[in-house]
């Protein structure tokens, strides 16, 4: 080996312990003094010392102070990957995500609930929705449990008037329509029936086309509130959502308490009725 190469090797060997010592938890095997002869045995011993101790336990921590222990780095700022350029940054990026997952200020703080508990849908504290939304599947997955909310849906429906079960030549105005919100098994709806012709069908009057079938149980009858216009009735305009149907029976009740069904004779070409009702669906 040329003298120049030997010198370079010696300088390197002399420098290495100094560099490693700053980031390691183990000590050098020997400290050489200037001009001291370096033997092969010493060189091998030092290299073995480094190789044997260069384990996770042998590498120094990244928490020399509270500030360094708390330091984090966003690996995905503005939705763009920011690649780490050192192990220190890699650690800080992992810390950042831990804090994001737990929602805590610092990555090392205990989470409010474990991922296992979360995956089992068991929460021991109130659920906080930072996005403020719960999305249900488009097709409900019904539950019979009395404490389980299983569906939410908003939509529109079209009220139709039927006399004796038919609606021959009935026509509707542009405002004819309705809106509903379904929460669990309850349907809450508004509707505006607007006729422009009451047609030729005759018989008892119903509003049909409710968005869901009413539960088939005598406890399921639901009386709506109405705002009738150009419809004749005695004393009070009433009605009920019929069980096991999608219809509202239209009735009148006298002050004496006699209930009778309205018929086509009570309607005119420009009759219109506003409806509001909540009922339990089948």
């Amino acid at each position, binding site marked *: 080996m040329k003298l120049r190469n030997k010198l370079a090797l010696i300088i390197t060997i002399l420098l290495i312990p100094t560099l490693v010592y700053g980031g390691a938890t183990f000590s050098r095997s020997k400290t050489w003094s200037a001009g001291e002869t370096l033997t092969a045995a010493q060189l091998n011993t030092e290299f073995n010392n480094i190789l044997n101790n260069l384990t996770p336990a042998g590498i120094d921590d990244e928490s020399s102070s509270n500030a360094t222990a708390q330091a984090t780095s966003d690996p995905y700022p503005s939705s763009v990957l920011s690649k780490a350029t050192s192990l220190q940054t890699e650690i800080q990026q992992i810390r950042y995500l831990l804090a994001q997952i737990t929602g805590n200020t610092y990555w090392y703080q205990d989470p409010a609930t474990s991922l296992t508990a979360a995956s089992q849908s068991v929460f021991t504290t109130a659920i906080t929705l930072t996005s403020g939304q719960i999305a249900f599947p488009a097709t409900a997955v019904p539950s*019979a449990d009395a404490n389980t909310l299983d569906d939410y*849906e908003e*939509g529109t429906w079209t009220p139709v008037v039927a006399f004796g079960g038919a609606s021959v030549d009935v026509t509707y105005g542009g405002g004819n329509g309705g809106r509903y919100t379904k929460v669990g098994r309850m349907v809450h709806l508004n509707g505006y029936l607007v006729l422009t012709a009451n047609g030729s069908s005759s018989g008892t009057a119903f509003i049909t086309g409710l968005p869901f079938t009413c539960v088939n149980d005598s406890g399921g009858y639901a009386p709506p509130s109405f705002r009738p216009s150009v419809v004749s009735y005695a004393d009070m305009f009433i009605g009920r959502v019929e069980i096991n149907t999608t219809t509202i029976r239209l009735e009148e009740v006298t002050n004496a308490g006699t209930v009778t069904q309205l018929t086509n004779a009570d309607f005119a070409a420009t009759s219109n009725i506003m409806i509001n009702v909540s009922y339990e669906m089948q």
Partner: protein
Amino acid sequence: MFKKTLIFLCIILIFPTFAYSGDFTKVSSFHYSVTENGNFQLRITTKYMKDGKIKEKKYSRPVTPDDTKKMDGWDDKSKAIVEVITDDKVSADFAIEKQEPTGVGIEEIISYDRTIDELGRISVRRIVRIYDDGKEVSKKYHRSWIMPGQDPSGEDVISRALAQKFHTPEVIAEYRALLAELND
């Protein structure tokens, strides 16, 4: 004392008889639907009945046949619905009717799903989605019905085919009888 003991024993022996009188019966009802992709789904509701009243319900998860050509073990109505939606003409018309977003610009895509109940009433849900460059930005529902005896023309392909298949004269008569009861 003997008399009191006898009465006590009688009460103990009789009480369980009262407590368990009125047996539960289990009744299953099937809920048939065809999804907006034209797939058949069946969900079963098990009703626990006592004294003619529903005391409890249990719902199954929706199930779909793995292979619509192998419907062994399914009930007749499921088979009939699958027969309707796999019919060559219905499938071809559905393929033409079915809309998919192209991913360019603002698009309105309309689809339908349907359920058919034991009385043959077909509930149709129209789903209107708005896409902006292929991303869904809005979804709205409108619900309507095709009742037995009602003209299904103007409805979507599958709803129309279901109405034509299931709204038989018998089903229409049964439905009209129900209406007649309401009109009484």
